[in-house]
């Protein structure tokens, strides 16, 4: 009988990472994910694994890079301002083809903003975020169970593609407490022949992103671009609720999806045919299911806690013919069901 318990969102990420075999965690305090760091501080030594509170998020991401280079499953967690600091390191890791898991518990920005939950890092997360041609798979949980499950998936996908994977949540989700089924521990970690573990009985390995040669570098980037294309083809994940007969499609992720479900139920109780597409991967984005629904003549409500960022991806999917309304909050204010329902009402 798998164990079931109550758990907070941030803790579920932490425990999920441990179940997935995370061998090293490096982090820096920043609200609203301090409880994740603190849980790791207590639990990683219990598990005989590496934990270190670093001098900055800059140092944390570079330590993740070093740990990944020696073949460890490594992770850091932060919030939006710290995530900005980590872009350099993430770019280097993607360029050097290093696996890692980075958790961004988003808060209001730009700048210092405030500590309320938000979804204002969407563009930064889904478009690489740092310099150069790269993308990260973005996994967006919407429940505490998904905080655990998608963190475990993140480690798998990171190793599968040799690329950092982002777990993107918001400050509210980090604090929500829900029942969780504790998953089974990952027993066997994949072999990593490319890791720098000491040149014992083999020629030396080298991990870098630097390539001065104008013939070799484009070749190298092409291999990366092909990798991102494989992600686009193979790793799209989303949930579709009540879309078969829907006239209006809500598009939302994270905490905004929870409110959207309430709004959808309110609408259905009034005989309005409303459905929901909930992206679970923000990259690769589920363009196709949205395009299919647009073809059927649906209208769309994008519900997000930002100035309108996922809105652009929905527009790309849907094209110019179908009406799209934005129901949003920003500045750390939670998005409740009522404004989403109002947008539905306006579309009818």
């Amino acid at each position, binding site marked *: 009988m798998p164990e079931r318990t109550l758990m907070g969102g941030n803790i579920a990420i932490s425990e999920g990472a441990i179940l997935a075999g995370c061998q090293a965690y490096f982090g820096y305090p920043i609200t609203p994910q301090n409880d994740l760091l603190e849980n790791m501080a207590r639990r990683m030594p219990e598990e005989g694994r590496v934990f270190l509170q670093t001098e900055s998020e800059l*140092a944390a991401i570079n330590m993740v890079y070093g740990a990944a280079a020696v073949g460890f499953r490594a992770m850091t967690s932060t919030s939006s301002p710290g995530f900005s600091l980590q872009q350099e390191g993430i770019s*280097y890791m993607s360029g050097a083809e290093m696996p890692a898991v980075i958790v961004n518990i988003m808060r209001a920005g730009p700048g210092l903003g405030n500590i309320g939950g938000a979804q204002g890092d969407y563009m930064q997360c889904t478009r690489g975020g740092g310099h150069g041609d790269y993308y990260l798979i973005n996994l967006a949980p919407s429940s505490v169970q998904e905080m655990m499950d998608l963190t475990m998936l993140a480690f798998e996908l990171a190793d599968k593609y040799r690329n950092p994977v982002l777990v993107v949540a918001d400050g509210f989700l980090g604090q929500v407490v829900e029942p969780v089924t504790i998953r089974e521990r990952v027993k066997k970690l994949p072999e990593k022949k490319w890791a720098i573990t000491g040149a014992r009985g083999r020629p030396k390995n080298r*991990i870098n992103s630097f390539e001065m040669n104008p013939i070799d570098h484009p070749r190298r980037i092409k291999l990366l671009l092909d990798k991102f294309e494989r992600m686009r083809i193979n790793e799209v994940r989303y949930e579709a609720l009540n879309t078969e007969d829907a006239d209006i499609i809500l598009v939302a992720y994270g905490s905004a999806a929870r409110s959207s479900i309430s709004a959808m139920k309110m609408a259905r109780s009034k005989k309005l045919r409303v459905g929901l597409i909930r992206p679970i991967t923000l990259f690769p984005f589920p363009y196709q299911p949205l395009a299919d629904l647009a073809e059927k003549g649906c209208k769309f409500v994008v519900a997000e806690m930002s100035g309108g960022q996922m809105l652009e991806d929905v527009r790309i999917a849907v094209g110019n013919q179908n009406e799209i309304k934005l129901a949003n909050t920003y500045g750390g204010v939670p998005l409740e069901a009522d404004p989403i329902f109002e947008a539905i009402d306006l579309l009818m």
Partner: protein
Amino acid sequence: MTSMSKAEMDDYDNVIFARPDIMVDRPTHFCPGCGHGIIQRLVGEALQELDLLERAICIGSIGCTVTAYEYFKVDGMEAPHGRAPAVATAIKRCRPDLVPFAIQGDGDLASIGAAEIVHAAARGEKITIIFANNATYGMTGGQLAPTTLMNMYTASTPGGRNAEQSGYPIRMSEMLATLDGPAYIARVAVNNPANVRKAKKAVELAFRTQLAGLGFAMVEILSMCPINWRVEPEQAPQWMTDNMIPQFPLGEFKVLPGVAALRRGDRS
């Protein structure tokens, strides 16, 4: 005629100096008279003599050391500008059996990497840092560095460094030696054979400090950069004596008793 390694020449006459086997037989990318070439060789000699082919991890930094890992036969990786101490920290904490080391320039270590080196030292990370200090940003064309001397011409202080604009040079070895984490901190130079011999001993001791698990070890090595000092290579060693050594005195700034014992040859 190629320079043959000790192993290859043993068939012939007695080799008393040759390229260490652990170093790749290749020309260097450094300018004529660059101190990095000497510094790299000293590192190679230490790795060879301590038999670290299978355990050492070379972390290249940004600047003229960016391709450091191409010169040794050990595993290597690249670190972003200034971040080598953080990368090395993680490697050592994850795999304490490995021997991570980094070669950093003065911009990498003392400017953009100032936080990382201070905290790695403060935590007493058991890593080895070789700090090549030539008072300039060599790779990018000779701009101001944290260790640039007063009144020194650089590409970004064309009137010479002055205090009002750019403050004062930083003595990293003395500064880090005030922390409790370091086990061995020394400053040496490579501008003449006697200094090079002392530098070699310091580099070797810095590696042995890591092997003995005694704490953070850093050797600051004053290095020639004739191009950006705007002198002929032949004048560079004297330029260092006249200008750099008064500002950056040679010596040891932190030697824990355990390290002193290693140096004496105590087997502990």
